[in-house]
């Protein structure tokens, strides 16, 4: 039976960990704009011009 106590505590620990992870993700701005990254792939023309304009590094 004592294993159940341990599992309950473990479950609480996992819950706390995932809440911390979620809050960290939100605070670091990962949910602020869910569309920009998807759209970024369409903007590749501008990106490809920039490296070409720079002199190649040796």
């Amino acid at each position, binding site marked *: 039976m004592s294993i159940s106590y341990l599992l*309950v505590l473990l*479950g*609480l620990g996992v819950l706390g960990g995932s*809440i911390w992870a*979620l*809050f960290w993700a*939100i605070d670091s701005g990962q949910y*602020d704009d869910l569309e920009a990254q998807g759209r970024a792939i369409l903007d590749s023309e*501008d990106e490809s011009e920039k490296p070409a304009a720079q002199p190649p590094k040796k």
Partner: protein
Amino acid sequence: MSAAEALHARWSPDNGVHEHVVFVADGIHCAGCVRNIEKAVNALPGIDAVRVNSVTARVSVDWQGRKGTELAQILDAVERAGFRPTPLAGAAAGADYRKERRTALKRFGLASLGMMQAMMYLTALYGVSDIDASMAQLMRVAGMVIVTPVLFYSGAPFLSGAWRDLRNRRLGMDVPVAFALVLAWLPSVFNTLRASGEVYFDSVGMFIFFLSAGRFAEMSIRHRSLSSAEAMARSLPAQVTRIDADGSRRKITADELVPGDRFSVPKGAVIAVDSQLAPDAPADGALLDESLITGEAAAARRRAGELIRGGSVNLGAPLVLVATAGVAQSTLASIVALLERAQADRPAIARVADRAASWFVSAILVLAAATAIAWYWFDPRMVFPAVLAVLVVTCPCALSLATPAALAAATLRLSRTGLLVTRVDALERLARIDTVVLDKTGTLTSGATAVNRVKLLGKPARDVVLAIAAALERDSAHPLAAAFAPHEKTEVRAEAVREFAGEGIEGHLAGQCWRLGRRSFVEALGSAGNVLPLVRKSDRDSAVYLGNSTGLMAAFEVGAALRPEAQGAVRALRLQGLDVMIASGDSEEAVQQAARMLGIKRARARMSPTDKTALLHELRAGGHRVFMIGDGINDGPVLATADVSCAMGHGSAIAQSAADLLLLHESLASLPLAVGTARRTLRVMRQNLIWALGYNLAAVPLAACGLISPWLAALGMSLSSLGVVLNARRLASAARAP
């Protein structure tokens, strides 16, 4: 003051006598809040009107500025009522949104994780009698440990909202909700501490989960509907580089720009104010993305002398521009102000729903008390779950969300296609129209010219005479020359082209001399006796003739070109069951011709604005509901006569527009879409109201009879709100439908 704050929606039409302001009040989410703000502001002297929109959280106030009421006093009154007024389109508002969104996400995230885990532990207590007493106690404690932070973090908006309501002695939507939460949580904690009895932690967790899901959805709608206006305002650069007379560059804030200032715009940057290209700009002009303003995705080219609207993005090389207006007078500011006006107003139907919702809350509390008393006599053990179920199941959010959510979604959808709704009840009226009256000049036709009709007078075929005319006119600067340009063929070349001012043009093709222009000018080339009798009196000097030494070959009727999308738009409007007619001030011929090309039977020509107004009055007296579309420049009174009006969005004149709708990219194709969207909006609003009322009428008796357990009640009330919001969201995303 930043550029964005210059866009702050405060204006005065008559220099301080009457003033108008729109701002956001944080913390509005129910009918009670709305009434409280209205009451607080109305208590001030000189207030004409206060409108509060509970979905967009906007407060709009009209007041008499010289009666001694300052804006600060109004903001103060709102603050004392327990709400935080924030500027509308400031950079601060942007940061506020992000913060609000993050906080709402955290609340929702904590509630969903907590709910799942609490449910996992506490189902062990459901109906299982042989569970070990110490094990059961462990589950209770685990539930308490999980749900208590959920209640006080995720549920904080509801608790504080209810507290604010009670302190102000009124009944808001949060009161029954918070009451239910505390009522379920307190005895559960008590039972946990004494290690026996029922606990409701799982129901509390679930209720909060659904409530915060609803709040999150509501917040997203609000942010989205604001985003169209505020994305504009916020995307404006706060700083610009001004080029002074001596060529030195200085960074200044955008609102310091005054008409006449030169400033530079790097590639990819947003242009801050309405402006023009500097005189020494390259001849090919500027390449701009105007999608922010017009919704039109294709890049636009603007040459010297043409208006460049603030909010456009410079796609090409760095530009030097001359400002033609300050930030507050630019197109963008006008658009934002109009959008604000639309979003701050609420249609009559929503006001009725709001009032109903506040009665509803009082009714719920009475009903809950009655349920408690009844069950106390009948079966005291059922008092608790039944009261809880009644309180939870009847949460009136669905009722107060029903219409604003639909309108916000529809407005958003239309603004994405370049159609600005400037009055919120315009959609309601638009849904009921049966007649469309179109102006011709500037509405059905654009500024461009085209060859509308070709009459062949000699042997050469239609495309041959057009190609010859095009070759003659190729390098001409005459306004009519552009009409022939689409018919140009590379193999047809004219030589020795000479222009005769006011007469026409002459040139040699394949050794033969051709003339294009007035009839007398062309006829002078051949012998007078060669004139063909086909030319009737009606082909007067308005037509352009083509001929060579053997006589006249063709007559062209050149006029304003119909917009390319006009035909499709008119057809779509008729498919929607609408009667389409033209009312124009133009000549009979021009109007009849346009009507023929568009397949419109009823067309009236030579109408003065007074005639048009009379026509609209006549139509309306005949029981028709009229949608008038004009160019918006000189037909203001006509537009105002119609049930709903739509104008072309021309530059900064739009701010004075009396029209209910504005076509920012001047494409008629948006009209059928607008009518379709308006009809669907009305349908969705009705569905929402019926759904919200029906749900409550069905659920309350069941809950009072104790047939609904608290967790089921939480599910039901959330689904009803979510249903309303999702139903409204269909409007924002759905493809076009009739």
